[in-house]
């Protein structure tokens, strides 16, 4: 028994090492294997309805309803089961920009009757309008709700499937093709850029604030541009060699079920409800969100 356990442990360790060594899987494919409600949802209806909800969330005018939208997005994130780490990274990327609103808006929002205003110093030239904080909070909450919703929208289907769904929804084909190729070549470009940068670093280049740095950075960008242009030509030729005639072939097929439509309708109704709560004070529960 003990022996069996040991060999099992060693097997699992070696499997673990194997996995660690293995190259990572295409994230989209990995995500696609999970089976939450969002993963199973027809991407066309998912995109349309979640985007509509996002527009509604972006249109609300009170902090309460914006926070309600945030809560809905966070719940969607939980149901979709996508990693919080990635959502946090997305929000962190916006954080500095949103933080700026909390600094700038209290100083710049026009003073309306009834606003609470604090004056700094002896003069009257720095005024802090506390309504500015609530406007900043409204912007931040709206941005957060849309950003959180992007996770279940974009990470629950492989990227090519999402782009193909966009094409079915009427986004022009050339744009979708460009998105697909960009997704592939952004990695190649990043790699090329990092190699070129490392090539300069290992010969002692450290960017400074002088003319020489500007000159070298100009060369660096020029070189990247030339190389990208050459690669574009070669990629196009490689596509021609394999029968490309202007249309990217697709293997994706979409099939919607009544459940997909019901889910879509639910999100659209949710978005409309949020707007109504925001706009009409007489509606039940609307006071809670003001």
């Amino acid at each position, binding site marked *: 028994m003990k022996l069996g356990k040991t060999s099992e442990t060693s097997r699992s360790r070696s499997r673990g090492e194997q996995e660690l060594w293995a190259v990572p899987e*295409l994230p989209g494919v990995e995500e696609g294997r999970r089976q939450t409600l969002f993963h199973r949802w027809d991407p066309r209806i998912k995109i349309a309805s979640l985007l509509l909800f996002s527009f509604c969330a972006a249109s609300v005018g009170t902090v309460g309803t914006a926070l309600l939208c945030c809560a809905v997005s966070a719940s969607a994130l939980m149901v979709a089961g996508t990693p919080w780490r990635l959502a946090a990274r997305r929000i962190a990327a916006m954080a500095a920009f949103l933080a700026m609103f909390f600094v700038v808006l209290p100083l710049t929002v026009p003073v309306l009757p009834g606003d609470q205003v604090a004056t700094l110093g002896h003069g009257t030239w720095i005024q802090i309008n506390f309504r500015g904080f609530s406007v900043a909070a409204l912007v931040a909450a709206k941005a957060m709700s849309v950003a959180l919703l992007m996770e279940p929208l974009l990470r629950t289907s492989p990227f090519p499937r999402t782009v193909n769904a966009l094409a079915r929804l009427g986004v022009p084909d050339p744009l979708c093709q460009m998105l697909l190729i960009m997704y592939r070549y952004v990695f190649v470009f990043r790699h090329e850029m990092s190699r070129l940068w490392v090539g300069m670093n290992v010969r002692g280049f*450290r960017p400074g604030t002088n003319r020489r740095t500007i000159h070298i950075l100009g060369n660096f960008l020029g070189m990247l541009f030339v190389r990208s242009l050459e690669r574009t030509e070669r990629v196009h030729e490689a596509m021609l060699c394999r029968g490309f005639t202007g249309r990217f072939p697709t293997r994706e097929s979409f099939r919607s079920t009544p459940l997909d439509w019901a889910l879509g309708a639910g999100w659209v109704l949710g978005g409309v409800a949020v707007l109504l709560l925001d706009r009409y004070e007489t509606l039940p529960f609307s006071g809670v969100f003001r």
Partner: protein
Amino acid sequence: MHLQAIPIHRPQQSASCVYRLEGVDYTYPNGNRALRGINLCIHEGDRIALLGHNGSGKTTLARVLSGLARPARGRVLFEEAPLEPHRLGHLRKKVGFLFQDPDDQLFCTSVLDDVLFGLINFQTPPEGAAQRALGALAQLGLEDTAHKAPHHLSYGQRKRAALAAVLALYPSVLILDEPTANLDPASEDLLAQVLKGYAGTLICISHDLLFLYGLCTRAVVLQDGCLHHDTSFEALISHRRSLQEHGLDFTFRFRCCDSPGRHVGAGRSPVRSTANDPSSSLPPARSAHVCRVSAGEAGSDACQRPEQPPILELHQYTYRYKDGAVALRDVSLQVRRGERVALVGPNGAGKSTLAACLAGIRSGSGRYRFDGKIVDNRRRRELWRHVGLLFQDSADQTVCSRCYDEVAFGLRNLGWPESKVHQKVRAMLRWAGLGDLENRVPQHLSGGERKRLALASVLAMEPDVLILDEPTAGLDPQAEENLLKLLDEVEATILLISHDICFVSMLTDRTILLHRGKIVRDVPTWRFLKDENLHSLYGLDFTYYNRCCREIQHLQETASETADGKGAPFNGL
């Protein structure tokens, strides 16, 4: 003077002509005349090696044959009919073209999509298409990677995936541009097996004549855009003078083989000691010790050096990529000043990552000492002053608009005064054989010249350690030989990452074998070369390569004896 000392290939009259080129000229928009009056007939089932110097027009000819470039003058006939725009669709169904850089050819988001791309474009029924795609992937050992993104594959895997995408179309003509560049021996062997089994017409551009031997039966040699030889491949390789004339003489590689064709430590020339004189045309000599190896010493531990303190020292060094993949595991090694060490191993073994860690580009966990001092973050940022790195692709190392500025780049970063920079740059350009090209744009140099420029720009900084990452990739044999001569003069401690067993044997004294991020062997090079089990165990089987060397040597000896006895046969093109 053009030599015509080899017999002309006479194709079988029964085989039908797939391509016929009549007086084909091609000029690039910048005025560069890449092809001049090419007359060529390619028969069904031909297996052609397309050879010539870097920049002789090989790739342009391949582009003309695949319908990507339209000749400025002359005619291209495909299946006996002129290649007009309306026939390009038909041509593309039948002709497969493997590009040099696999990233040009893998443009979809998964490998399977890439392989299916052509099949769907050519209206193959979905079920048949999937079967063919998976079959092609399996043929090249990539069935497990079908759903992976191309950028998550190793270089060797990407190269094979690109070939799978072409082979899935069942082309009747296959054109390959440098298929073996940067491949490890195992991948190269797999590629050779697949191509040997390919029944159609094969046109292969490569500088690797040992790979082409046994694969191709006909050799077409270009020089300055003109067709210089069209002969049997065996006749070409057995005629050294013709090979020399076209920069294809790879017989310097035989120096690393003993009589039965096996690799031994090759005779490295004694190295001159140079002072740190900026006007010196030799690379700097900071290191005091130089180790010499000669073929005669192959039976013993060739490098009997006095105990020098290690210049590079790693202890239990581990490096993980951000995605969690382990690149190096508990690596411990010591490299002494003046040593020449080869880092070998299959693609993805961690060689380049180890080099990046030693050069201070990446930082892992474990202890790293440089010249006896612990490399902390502050020292790591200063390692560039002591460690020079020559990249696999010289284009990654050229950012300036003039060769002169390229060599001066590092010296200016070192803070040298301009007068000293000027002296040093001139000396280094002269040393690299680029003395009269100082105002040339680096991108306009040939592959060999660009490699020498990169080497000169690194060595100008007088590094204590020189790390070379696949220095021979994409070079023609003459450029390889020139590079070998230059490297042999370098006195800095050398770390050579290479799949080129010949360079390893001729340039290094010690070989470290990496496998899955671990050092599995650290032995004198001569011992590594003799241990055939070691090669096959870690996907570095050079048996086929050695056999080719032996056979070509024999062919050349026979041809030379014939020439001595009867006079060299002389045939016009």
